[in-house]
């Protein structure tokens, strides 16, 4: 553990003790984790050859503390973290993940105002209907370090028996350098009902300047073992940003300006996102989950290959294997950096398969996650073992392996694998 981490742990423990002593009747949850990461880099990837374009650390230590407080209708979730690695100076950061006020207007009507994490879909790794939720990674669906941050919103929910109706207004407004900036106005409506064993929701979502999208999600249980769920969201056109190289015949180009644009914003073609999933529990307690996700906003295999040729061209220039005038080497580097924006933590291409096996016995938890790109068959494997030392302390080991052809989505990532070892204290 680094000196920075030790200072951070002491600071967080003192803060928590003071808060706990000062606040009688407060609901709280507190966790602090220290996680060390060793990374084996993919030094031959054209995205980041010899780790020279966007240098990545091979050793890192994260100390992360999460504090949740709730008093009356007011609740907040705070994250304080310290990071040290072999590349950059140690750094502290904090974030207010949530700060909201829940007001119960009656037994049937509730209002929430503030920053809050809302998640709407039943999907485990992917949530096409999670139109109001923050970005998250399918290879870490449980957000183990508590790093997801809520969105600024006003929501109103009316409850009636086994049904509810929720309206949400969102605006990612920001206060910067003493000036308040409104973000785009965003509206979402969800009607939920529980009907003959079926959880069923209908969802509408509209963002200023974009088109209305509509969707549904559902889940149901069959017998003692099996749960099925699904999500579907569709709209005319797409607001996704695409690299201009995708619609060009020549991948050997250097763009002079930012090369991304909305390609299908005026299209009348229906773009949809679909998730189908299940989970099955065996009598011995082993739980298996499986999901298929299709995202029409993603790249097709031919578009991916075109983009990869473009990346390889820029990498060739950077490595000197493709000769260009010296004044073009800098712009080419910028093109390579811009190209990386095509990659999305939620998946860059169209088809994905997700699997998870979980078993808990006594003090041990075993989890094995598989995420596969269905278009190029590249895979992410994430086995995790957790041992509960006590109610308050646990230690864990997590290994993440990225497998696939050198020009596939996960085979071309910056790293080949990473190992996390962590200890967590919870109160």
């Amino acid at each position, binding site marked *: 553990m680094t000196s920075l981490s030790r200072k951070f742990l002491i600071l967080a423990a003192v803060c928590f003790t003071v808060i706990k002593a000062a606040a009688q009747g407060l609901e709280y949850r507190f966790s602090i984790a220290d996680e060390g990461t060793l990374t084996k880099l993919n030094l031959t990837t054209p995205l980041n050859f010899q780790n020279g374009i966007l240098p990545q650390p091979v050793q890192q230590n994260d100390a992360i503390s999460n504090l949740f407080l709730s008093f009356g209708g007011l609740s907040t979730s705070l994250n304080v973290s310290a990071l040290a690695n072999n590349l950059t100076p140690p750094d502290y950061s904090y974030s207010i993940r949530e700060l909201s006020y829940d007001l119960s207007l009656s037994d049937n009507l*509730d209002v929430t105002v503030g920053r809050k*994490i*809302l998640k*709407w879909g039943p999907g485990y790794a992917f949530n096409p209907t999670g139109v109001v939720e923050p970005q998250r990674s399918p290879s870490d669906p449980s957000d183990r370090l508590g790093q997801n941050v809520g969105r600024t919103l006003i929501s109103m929910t009316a*409850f009636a028996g086994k049904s509810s109706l929720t309206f949400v207004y969102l605006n990612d407004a920001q206060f910067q350098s003493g000036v308040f900036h409104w973000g785009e106005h965003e509206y979402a409506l969800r009607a939920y009902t529980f009907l003959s064993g079926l959880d069923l929701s209908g969802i509408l979502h509209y963002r200023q300047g974009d088109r209305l999208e509509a969707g549904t999600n559902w889940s149901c*249980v069959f*017998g*003692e073992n099996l749960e099925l769920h699904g999500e579907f969201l569709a709209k005319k056109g797409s607001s996704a940003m695409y690299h201009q190289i995708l619609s060009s015949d020549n991948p050997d180009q250097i763009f002079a300006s930012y090369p991304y644009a909305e390609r299908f914003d005026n299209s009348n073609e229906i773009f949809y996102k679909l998730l189908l999933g299940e989970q*099955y529990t065996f*009598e011995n307690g082993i739980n298996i989950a499986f999901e298929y996700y299709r995202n029409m906003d993603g790249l097709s295999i031919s578009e991916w290959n075109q983009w990869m040729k473009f990346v390889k061209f820029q990498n060739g220039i950077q490595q000197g294997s493709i000769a260009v005038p010296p004044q073009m080497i800098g712009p080419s580097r910028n093109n390579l950096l811009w190209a990386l924006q095509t990659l999305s933590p939620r998946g860059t291409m169209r088809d994905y398969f997700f699997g998870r096996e979980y078993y808990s016995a006594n003090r041990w938890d075993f989890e094995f996650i598989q995420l596969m790109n269905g278009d190029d068959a590249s895979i992410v494997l994430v086995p995790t073992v957790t041992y509960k030392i006590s109610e308050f302390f646990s230690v864990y080991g997590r290994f993440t392996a990225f497998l696939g052809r050198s020009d596939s989505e996960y085979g071309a990532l910056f790293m080949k694998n990473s190992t996390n070892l962590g200890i967590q204290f919870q109160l």
Partner: protein
Amino acid sequence: MKELLKIVIVAIFAGTTITPLHGQDNAKLTGDEILRLSDVNRNGWTSYSVTTTIMNYEDKELTEEGLFEVSIKGMDKTLVKFMNADVKGQYLLMVDDDMWIYMPNTRKPIRITPLQRLMGNASNGDVARTRYAEDYAAKVTKEETIEGVPCYVLELNAKRDGATYKRIDYWVEKETKRPKKAEMYLISGKHFKSISFDRYQEAAGRTLLTQMTIIDRLREGRTTVMKYASYAEKEMPEKYFNKDYLEKLR
């Protein structure tokens, strides 16, 4: 008239009020009526909360201990709040046969199956479903004396697919109608668990179950002890038992 009186008594016992059971005309009670009366010893009110401690043992060694606050409303709604530090903020909601779990990390309720366990050998249904009369049809098969106490032996068969067990053999004390022991079976016919109802105590002016022991018949040596304390009548709005309200609970 006697029949009408019997129906009224059963209806009252199945609802909120507990009155002395001694002197009931046992000979005329059906299996379903005995089951309803026995449920009263596990549920003091129509809407109440109870603190539940679950202790898991493996080869008589304590391996895990969990604390839960269980809120029950009516015949079909249960909300379980997890109190241990490692699962704090987690909730289990059960409405009729359907269950959702809410975990603060994922911030959303997830639909779960009856076999997904709350902790160790205790299934969600063991904690959440305490009114067997709602889930099972009962018939008296015989009478037996257990540890010197005369008991009815009831055969309970699941009325609904979502009931925690397919079949239960259930021993109920003749005099007090307190559950004495139970043998639980899965749809496959496998003998799944044995339960002994160990201790009853005066709680909030009523005699209620305060300890039971679950023995896992599929995995030898695994035992769970469940202790109940702090029974209290508690009124809760309906929305507390709506899946979408889980994210608002603390």
